[in-house]
């Protein structure tokens, strides 16, 4: 596949594993094993079993009647919000926990922004009886407090990341430091298609179930597996990677990746990596990231904790550079408005991350016959306080 990872771990210019030597044994253990283990029938069976019986897959591809009517086009929602724990994140944690088990790991660490990945990780750790430690930025601990409570209920320890912007980037730093300190018994479950190879590819593979299902479901509903547009929000890019995966090389399917503009691209309070980023290294991966001229990583800003990240996964950096995908920046205000609209038109309260994808209609028009698939990456239960404050409900 042209737009997928090559056998060196790169997507075009992007990717690779820019890691300190301390992580070399872990990363190379993974690199050597992830494809082999995850293609064993036993693994596939258990993965599929859990996705079906535990996560509740397949998630519906739901035709959004009232939204379609309003925007005069055909809109399907891929309902990842219906996954156990409320977002696509669990597809990946199920895969990785099985891998960790096979690798004999006893202790799991993860970073989290919105807390969805933290909850998804704590969940699979409870399921498998493994010790679980979640790093989360201090600011995110406050703005996503329901998810902090969930992690604790699930028996995980939540450790605050107090450095930098105290958000996702810093939580990731802390998780990596933990891994360096605990190289033998610990598996680090990264929550998006970021980090050193093989993480981006591994996470994308586990998330690819999303586009596999879309293909089948759309075929039944529209007679073709190919929509005109695929639309997903991009923080690190895992829900987008899952949505695009099977369509990467089907160039007749247009791909739109939606980033968080925060208070606006020009305001210095933004997380729109494609618009503001340059090539560089973040968290072990060569990709696009927001940085100063000197190469210091910029502190991003978005109202949505899950998009508040100064980089994107290397797959997306490549989709941007090669123009395979169109990148669109959505402001806090646009995302919030879209979240409220989806709630009141379709009875589905999206995560604020997801709200960004639905704000596409504020910037782009579609034709009546266009078939759109928007990934409804997660539900908004974690964001209720933010919504209520914002709209003074």
């Amino acid at each position, binding site marked *: 596949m042209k737009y997928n990872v090559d056998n060196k771990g790169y997507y075009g210019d992007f990717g*690779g*594993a*820019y*890691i*300190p*030597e*301390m992580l*070399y*044994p872990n990363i190379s253990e993974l690199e050597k094993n992830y494809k082999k283990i995850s293609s064993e029938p036993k693994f596939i069976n258990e993965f599929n079993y859990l996705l079906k019986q535990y996560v509740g897959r397949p998630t519906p591809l739901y035709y959004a009647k009232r939204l379609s009517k309003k925007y005069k086009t055909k809109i399907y929602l891929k309902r990842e919000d219906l996954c156990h724990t409320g977002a696509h994140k669990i597809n990946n944690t199920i895969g990785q926990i099985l891998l960790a088990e096979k690798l004999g790991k006893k202790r799991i660490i993860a970073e989290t922004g919105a807390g969805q990945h933290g909850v998804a990780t704590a969940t699979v750790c409870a399921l498998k009886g493994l010790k679980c430690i979640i790093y989360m930025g201090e600011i995110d601990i406050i703005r996503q407090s329901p998810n902090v409570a969930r992690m604790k209920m699930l028996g995980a320890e939540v450790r605050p990341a107090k*450095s*930098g912007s105290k958000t996702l*980037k*810093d939580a990731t*730093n802390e998780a*990596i*430091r933990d891994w*360096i*300190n*605990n*190289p*033998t018994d610990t598996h680090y479950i990264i929550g998006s298609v970021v980090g050193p190879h093989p993480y981006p590819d591994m996470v994308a593979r586990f998330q690819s179930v999303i586009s596999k299902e879309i293909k089948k479901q759309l075929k039944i509903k529209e007679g073709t597996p190919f929509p005109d547009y695929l639309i997903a929000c991009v923080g690190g890019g895992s829900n987008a990677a899952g949505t695009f995966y099977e369509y990467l090389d089907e160039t007749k399917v247009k791909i739109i990746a939606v980033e968080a503009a925060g208070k606006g691209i020009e305001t210095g309070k933004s997380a729109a990596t494609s618009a503001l980023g*340059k*090539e*560089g*290294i*973040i*968290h*072990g991966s060569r990709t696009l990231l927001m*940085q100063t*001229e*000197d*190469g*210091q*990583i910029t502190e991003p800003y978005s109202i949505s904790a899950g998009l508040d990240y100064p980089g994107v996964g290397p797959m997306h950096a490549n989709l941007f550079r090669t123009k395979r995908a169109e990148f669109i920046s959505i402001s806090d205000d646009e995302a919030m408005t879209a979240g409220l609209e989806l709630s009141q038109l379709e009875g589905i309260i999206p995560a604020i991350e997801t709200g960004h994808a639905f704000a596409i209609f504020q910037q782009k028009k579609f034709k009546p016959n266009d078939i759109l698939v928007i990934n409804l990456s997660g539900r908004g239960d974690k964001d209720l306080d933010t919504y209520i404050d914002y709209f003074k409900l």
Partner: protein
Amino acid sequence: MMNRIDQKFKTQDKILSIYFSAGFPNIDDTRIIIKELESAGVDMIEIGLPFSDPLADGPTIQESSNIAIKNGMSSQKLFNQLKNIRNETSIPLVIMGYFNPILQFGIENFCKKCKDVGIDGLIIPDLPVNVYNNRYKSIFQKYELYNMFLITPQTSEERIRYIDDISKGFIYMVSDASITGAKNKINLNQKKYFNRISKMKLKTPTIIGFGISNSKTYNTAISHSNGAIIGSAFIKFIEKNGTKKIKEFVEKFR
């Protein structure tokens, strides 16, 4: 001319190397610290190029890096400060920094500037051996810069041999599975690891770093290797005492 690092290892058995974050505590302390360290009898200096997201560093170095960045430290600034440093000192100077700032500066440009000001080598923790080998080695060689690699207790024998093979200057032995940070003790497992490496009789000298903080840990380290690097402990010291009493700090290790 022989690389000053090689020269040092040739002429001296055990090396005391000190790491500091350039631009900390004050933006213009770089030259002062280098001169104070040299006159205090230190054998080699690692100049930390601060980075916003130093993955392999503990709180002390992270904090000093943040302050240094706020003070205005950058690659260009550092090179400006080091411009005539070789008029003043001949101590081996190594820059230790993460890859992204170097990449933004331009690798070739960075190496050229290093050579211009008289830097002897680089330690870039997040530039892996194979990437270095495949993409950047020729540039380093062009500017006669050594690139030093790390090994850890988890590094396989095979990989250590490989690293030894391609290494110049020294091998940076990370003392433990850990990030940087001052520790009080070296435990039995670490000693076993030091012995294991020692028995491998590598061609490249080894220096032990991470967690070396006092004369006890220092002495244990140098008894198993060719030297030791002190970082966090030194940064804590100058944070408290400023740059005036650096001699006091160094004396404790002699």
